[in-house]
C-alpha cells in the first residue's frame, strides 16, 4: 500500500533510488572494485583507465577504496541508526505510556545526556572503548538515543489524546494492546527518524575516523578522509581523495532526507489528516 504512494511522490523516488544504488554498491563491492583497495600503486596518479579516480598519496586506488568503504560506512550507519531507534523508541514509549513519575525520571535522564554535546562525548567514549568500528556503533548508540526518545515520546503523547485512542482505552485494552494499536501510527515517524539517524551516524562515524579514532584495520569513507587529511594530499593539488568520499556521504544523506520526508507525506495523505481546504 505505502509503496504505491511513494512511487507517485517525486522525493520518494529519488530517495529510494539513492538508497538502492548505495546498497547495491555495498553488496557487490568485490565485483565492482577494479583494484584491491589495500594494494599500493604509483602515488598521485590522475584519473585514468586503470584508476578511475586516480590514486592517493600512498598510491592506493581511490575508486576501489570508495566502493569497499561504502560497505562498512553504510553498515555502521544503518546499524547504529537501528540501535539508536530501538533503544530510543523503547524509552520514548515507556515514558509516554507509563506513570507521570516514571516519565519525569526518564526525561531528566535524557536531559542530562542531551546537555553534554555529542562529539566530545563521542570522542571520550571512543577513547574508553578503544578503536574498532563495533565500538563506534556502541558509542553512537549511547550518545544519540535521547534525541529519538524525545521525538517518539511527544508523538505518542499527542496520539494518546486523540479520541480513537481513548475509545480503545475505554474498551479496556492493556498497555501492551495499546502499543500494538499505536505502532502503525508511529511507524512513519520511526522510518523517517531511521533515515535521519542513518545520515547522522554516517557523518559522525566519518568524523570519528577523521580524528583518528576510527578502526585503522578497515576502510570506510571516514578513514579515507583521515588519510587524505593527515597526508595533506590536497596541498599537492590532488583533490579527488578528499572530495570523493565526502561527496558520497552527502549524496547518501540528501537521498535519505528526501526518503524521510516522502514517508511523512504518505502517512499524512493516507489518513487524510491533510484537509483540502
Amino acid at each position, binding site marked *: 500500500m505505502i509503496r504505491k504512494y511513494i512511487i507517485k511522490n517525486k522525493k520518494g523516488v529519488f530517495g529510494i533510488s539513492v538508497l538502492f544504488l548505495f546498497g547495491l554498491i555495498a553488496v557487490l563491492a568485490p565485483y565492482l572494485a577494479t583494484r584491491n583497495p589495500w594494494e599500493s600503486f604509483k602515488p598521485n596518479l590522475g584519473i585514468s583507465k586503470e584508476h578511475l579516480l586516480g590514486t592517493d598519496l600512498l598510491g592506493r586506488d581511490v575508486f576501489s577504496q570508495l566502493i569497499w568503504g561504502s560497505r562498512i560506512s553504510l553498515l555502521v550507519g544503518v546499524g547504529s541508526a537501528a540501535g539508536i531507534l530501538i533503544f530510543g523508541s523503547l524509552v520514548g514509549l515507556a515514558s509516554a505510556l507509563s506513570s507521570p513519575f516514571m516519565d519525569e525520571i526518564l526525561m*531528566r535522564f535524557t*536531559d*542530562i545526556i*542531551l*546537555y*553534554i*554535546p*555529542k*562529539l*566530545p562525548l563521542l*570522542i*571520550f567514549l571512543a*577513547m*574508553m572503548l*578503544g578503536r574498532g568500528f563495533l565500538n563506534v556503533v556502541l558509542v553512537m548508540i549511547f550518545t544519540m538515543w535521547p534525541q529519538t526518545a524525545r521525538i517518539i515520546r511527544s508523538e505518542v503523547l499527542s496520539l494518546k489524546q486523540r479520541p480513537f485512542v481513548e475509545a480503545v482505552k475505554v474498551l479496556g485494552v492493556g498497555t501492551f494492546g495499546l502499543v500494538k494499536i499505536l505502532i502503525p501510527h508511529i511507524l512513519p515517524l520511526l522510518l523517517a527518524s531511521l533515515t535521519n539517524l542513518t*545520515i547522522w551516524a554516517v*557523518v559522525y562515524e*566519518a*568524523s570519528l575516523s*577523521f*580524528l*583518528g579514532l576510527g578502526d585503522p584495520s578497515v576502510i570506510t569513507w571516514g578513514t579515507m*578522509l583521515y588519510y587524505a*587529511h593527515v597526508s595533506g594530499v*590536497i596541498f599537492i*593539488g590532488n*583533490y579527488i581523495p*578528499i*572530495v570523493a*568520499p*565526502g561527496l558520497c*556521504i*552527502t549524496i*547518501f*544523506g*540528501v537521498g*535519505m*532526507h*528526501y526518503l524521510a520526508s516522502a514517508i511523512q507525506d504518505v502517512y499524512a495523505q493516507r489518513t487524510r489528516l491533510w484537509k483540502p481546504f
Partner: protein
Amino acid sequence: MKYFLRRLSLVFFAWVFALIILFFLPRLMPVGPEALLADRFRLPEEAVLLMRKEFGLDLPITTQLLRFLQNVVFKFPPDFGYSYINYPVRVKDIILSHLPWTVYLMMSSLMVTFLLGSVTGIIAAWKRGTKLEGILSLLAIFCLSSPVFWLSYILIIVFAFVFRVFPPAGAYSVTITSTFSLQFIGSVLRHSVLPMLAIVLTQAPSYFLLVRDNMSLVFKEDYVITAMAKGVKERTIVFKHVARNALLPAVSLFGTQVGLMLGGQIMVEAVFSYPGVGKLIVDAILGLDYPVVIGFFYIIITLGIIMSIVTDFVYIIIDPRVRYG
C-alpha cells in the same frame, strides 16, 4: 519571578550533578591516571608517587571529590589543578589562552547561523513553490547532510587554492605580532571567514527547514486570513505577523544549538588548525590529559545551561502566552 527561581534551582542541581559525573568519568577510564603517568613518561617509581601526591590522587576518593567540588563550584575562576601533559602549566591558563578564539568564532557563527537560517527560511516559506525556494531547499539539504570537515576542505580548495581569496589555515598570519593593531585585526578577520562559513553552512539549514515548515503551518492559521482581510500588505503580514510566531521554535533551537555547534567547532578547528579550545580538547582526549578534559567539559556544560536559561528568558519576552500563561 518565582518561575525563574524554580527554574534556576532546578538547573543548578542538574549542573552540580553533571559535574559530579564529570569527576568520576576519568576514574572509569581503563587507563588510570597513575598507569598513564608511569608508562607515558617512563618515570621512575618514586617520581610517580611524588606525582600522585602532587595531584592528590592518593587521597581517599571522597576527599578528592570534596576538594574537586570545592575549587570548581565555589571558586571562580574554577581551578582544575595541573595538566598532565605540559605539567607545570595550570589547566586554567591553557584553557584561558585558547578560549577567546573559540568564543569569538562560535559566538559570531552562532549569530550568523540564526540570522541566515531564519531569514532564508522566511523567504522560502513566503515564496513557497517557486524555483527560488526549490534551490534554497536543495542547497540546505545538501549542506545539512555534508560532514562539516569535508565542507571545510571544499571551501579551502575553492577559496584558498583556486581563487586564493582567503588564507587556508591559522587564526592570523604569522608575520604580524599579536598586538591590537588594525593590521592584526584585519588579518584575524580574513582568517576567520572560511571557518565561520563552514560552521554556518552546516548549522544554518536546520534553522532554515524548521522556520520554513513552521511558517507554512502559521500561514494556514485564521489570523493570517484576518490580516489579509484587513488589507495588510503582504510583506508586513510575512514579517510582522507570521515570522514572529514562526521564530519561536527557532529561538528554542538556538538554546540547544550550543552543544551541536561545538561538534562543528572541533572539526573546523582541526581542519583549519585554528588555535581554539576545540583543537586543544582533541589532543587532550587523545593524550588522556584528564584535568584539561574536565575543564573543557565544565565549560561546555556551563555554557549549555546558561544558553538554555537565556533562551527561556528570550522566549518569555517574545511569546506573551508564556509570560501571562
